[in-house]
């Protein structure tokens, strides 16, 4: 049982508290989902429960937090280790040892449990999580989903009563995320663990939640029945958005519930929203691209053609070769064999992208890497913009005005590290767009963005393709793909397994189908807007 009594958290130098007067009560064996906009204080709320706020982060905490009777004022996180298990966003960053078995035992060693108990619990945990065949494996060699399950296992071995997870699936592909979520729900049902989980992609967890904690603007927190809270929450997955629009009572939270309510829609005429515009001229043509890392073939003889006016989504499992392909096409990454040619209008005029030097290349093909912050090394946003103008040979102010289009209101003197995830992405995007490349590649840009942030990114990308540019986005986020991409390329084990218009590729696949498609199939609708257009008037 977790009780927060009139908790306020404020950090020095901030004008208003991150959390204001929060009173919560989470019962034993509940799955509590914490939702809210990026930067709203979700992590601070979780930190207050685990004792990291204020013991680790500093700041001032007023009120009291009691976890199964222990007050976090007197108990540091390490004193709660036998009671609270914490799993972070990036499992690899939290690993202390280097093999699965040792990692599972680490927490127990710290608590001083007996050797036989440790042996027994390690075996039990390996079975509960279904990772028994990985016991001797090196942690760094596991896939993302496996790593996250080991991270959960490593806190489970101490038999905690509370499990706190901060965006456990944000780095995972849809299948890996399903595995982790299945594990979490199983823990709640079988072991009566109280689970507190914060998640951006609410659609994945919402249907399993017993109680919903919404962190709103100005640190105001509300707790209640998921369907009740979702009615007014400032973040909403497609299923909720659809339910709100259609006025369904009670609000459906799962695809199953919504599908029942949407039954009458299935007989409506499909009336697709927009006629697909004829794709523009070919801007980039990559042939038989092969990338190898030592002995592993990451990309095997892939052909990609990018046309003007098209947003292409690149999907596939973690490790399917998406990043390798993007880096090879941009020209900075390794490529074993193949050609990448930039076409200029007429078919005879071509440039070999890989033969250019780095400065010249980025005027043809721009890439925003997965860890976008790597590109920023100056101490203010203004300095970054000036630097971008000079290295691209554009007139001063180009980058700044691009940035104002993407994300207005970022002051020049702000340090890039102090920006939110979405703002930092906007700065990097502006820096890369200053060179005005006709082809822009983005590697996992939606990580850490909430629904509004994704909306802003989508609008920016649509503006680009409207100007005759071509954009490629690699992502795991099926809802983002459904709303923004014209075309989807699916990769598996280094090969392209599907390539076609979004509706065709995505609807057919069980893993990649967006919620709206699942709810309204066999209709060809992908997004709430499609439904709004086709149904016109909710019944």
């Amino acid at each position, binding site marked *: 049982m977790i009780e927060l009594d009139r908790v306020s958290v404020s950090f020095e130098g901030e004008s208003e508290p991150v959390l204001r007067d929060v009173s919560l009560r989470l019962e034993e064996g509940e799955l509590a989902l914490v939702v809210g906009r990026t930067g709203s204080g979700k992590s601070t709320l979780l930190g207050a429960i685990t004792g990291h706020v204020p013991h680790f982060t500093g700041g001032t905490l007023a009120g009291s937090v009691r976890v199964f009777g222990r007050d976090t004022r007197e108990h540091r*996180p390490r004193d709660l280790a036998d009671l609270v298990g914490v799993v972070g966003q990036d499992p690899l960053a939290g690993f202390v040892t280097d093999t699965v078995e*040792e990692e599972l035992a680490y927490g127990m060693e710290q608590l001083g449990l007996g050797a036989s108990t440790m042996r027994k619990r390690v075996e039990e945990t390996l079975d509960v999580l279904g990772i028994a065949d990985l016991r001797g494996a090196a942690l760094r060699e596991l896939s993302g989903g496996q790593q996250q399950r080991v991270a959960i296992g490593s806190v489970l071995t101490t038999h905690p009563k509370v499990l706190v997870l901060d965006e456990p699936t944000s780095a995972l592909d849809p299948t890996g995320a399903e595995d982790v979520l299945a594990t979490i729900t199983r823990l709640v049902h079988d072991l009566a663990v109280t689970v507190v989980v914060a998640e951006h992609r609410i659609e994945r967890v919402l249907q399993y939640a017993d109680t919903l904690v919404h962190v709103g603007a100005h640190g105001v927190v509300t707790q209640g029945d998921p369907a009740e809270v979702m009615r007014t929450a400032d973040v909403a997955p497609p299923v909720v958005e659809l339910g709100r629009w259609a006025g369904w009572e009670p609000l459906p939270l799962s695809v199953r519930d919504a599908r029942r309510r949407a039954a009458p829609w299935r007989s409506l005429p499909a009336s697709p929203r927009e006629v697909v515009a004829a794709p523009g001229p070919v801007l980039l043509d990559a042939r038989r691209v092969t990338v190898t890392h030592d002995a592993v073939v990451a990309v095997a003889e892939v052909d990609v053609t990018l046309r003007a006016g098209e947003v292409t989504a690149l999907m596939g499992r973690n490790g399917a*070769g998406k990043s390798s392909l993007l880096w090879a096409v941009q020209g900075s990454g390794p490529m074993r064999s193949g050609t990448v040619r930039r076409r200029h209008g007429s078919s005879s005029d071509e440039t070999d992208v890989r033969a250019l030097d780095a400065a010249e*290349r980025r005027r043809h093909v721009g890439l925003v890497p997965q860890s976008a912050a*790597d590109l920023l090394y100056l101490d203010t946003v203004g300095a970054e913009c000036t630097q971008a103008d000079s290295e691209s040979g554009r007139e001063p102010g180009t980058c700044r005005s691009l940035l104002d289009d993407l994300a207005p209101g970022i002051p020049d003197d702000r340090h890039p590290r102090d920006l939110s995830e979405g703002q930092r992405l906007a700065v990097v995007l502006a820096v890369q767009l200053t060179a005005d490349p006709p082809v822009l590649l983005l590697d996992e840009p939606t990580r850490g963005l909430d629904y509004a942030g994704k909306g802003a990114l989508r609008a920016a990308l649509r503006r680009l393709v409207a100007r005759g540019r071509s954009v490629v986005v690699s992502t795991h986020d099926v809802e983002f793909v459904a709303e923004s991409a014209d075309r989807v390329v699916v990769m598996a084990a280094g090969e392209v397994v599907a390539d076609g218009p979004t509706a065709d590729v995505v609807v057919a696949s069980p893993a990649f189908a967006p919620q709206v498609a699942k709810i309204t199939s066999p209709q060809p609708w992908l997004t709430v807007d499609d439904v709004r257009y086709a149904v016109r008037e909710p019944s």
Partner: protein
Amino acid sequence: MAWWLWAIGLAVAVSNVTNPFLLLTALCVAALVVLSRRGSSPWAGSFRLYLWLGGFIVLVRAVLHVLVGLKFGGAVVLPLPEVSLPSWAAGINLLGDVRLGGLVGAVTEGLRLAVMIACIGAANSLANPKRLLRTLPGALSEIGSAVVVTISVAPQLAESVQRVMRARALRGDTSRGIRAVPRVALPVLEDTLDRSLMLASAMDSRGYGRRREVGGARRALTAACTLGGLLASAVGIYGVLDATTPGWMGLPALSLGIGLSLAGIWLGGAANARSTYRPDPWRGAEWLTVACGAAAAVAVQFVRRTDAASLGIPLDPLGVPALPLLALAGLLVAALPAFLTPPPPPPSPRGAAASRPLPAEVHP
């Protein structure tokens, strides 16, 4: 643990030897044991690095001898002019004729150091240094964890440098040298700092640094033991090294100091509730390994007491070194673990991970 003691025995054995026959025997022994008993872990391949380092040391020693060494003995190998230095540097000969005796002496000196390093390298590739740290007593186990974390940071640092370098190419910036340093260092430092904070917070919430409740008297006793032990050790070492001090200041004080320090560590460890998962067993094979290492050390030390000249090499005039059979036998005994200890376990089963290609997303 046993391998480290074995390696220390071998290193002690060669520490007084400049006889090239014995040195090369020791080197062969170390190499033989490494080749037959190393595991499949990534650090098992590190022996080769230590050999390269050893070779480099021999080379440096020889070059230094040619530059500033005292040239003596036998035939002139390489006639070089001698540079006379001003009076304030008198006694240092720069260059000068290189003579055979001096050169051989320098090379054997270098070889001795190289073989000692090869012994440590052998231990490193035979046993995971991280497992060695796990055998530390309770009071020091937290330092051990810290060292383990530090070791694992190094490859991550290299990875993030690589990532940032690649990201710079995306901004069209491929400059190298001094100008590039802040542009790489800043993102890498930020990245490392973030990771360290995340790791620290994860370790904290998993109970790192937990303490049992300890009474005040016990704490005072621990402090007294540790401080007293350090003081007595200092006095003891002074006494051992300085012959003019009274007898009680030597060995007795030193052993008292070591005893008190050990007691302090033990008392301090009792406050730490930590336990060890599947501690490395200590069985007959471990005893055998340590005994073989010790045998080598004892045999060579015995020869040193009886017939010290045979461990060296006659340089002036240069001659063929003797072959002390007892020392040779001792070194060969150290090779026995290569045949008598159980072979290392086969590579750990990786399950699905082994057949899976490496996560290319992380290393595009």
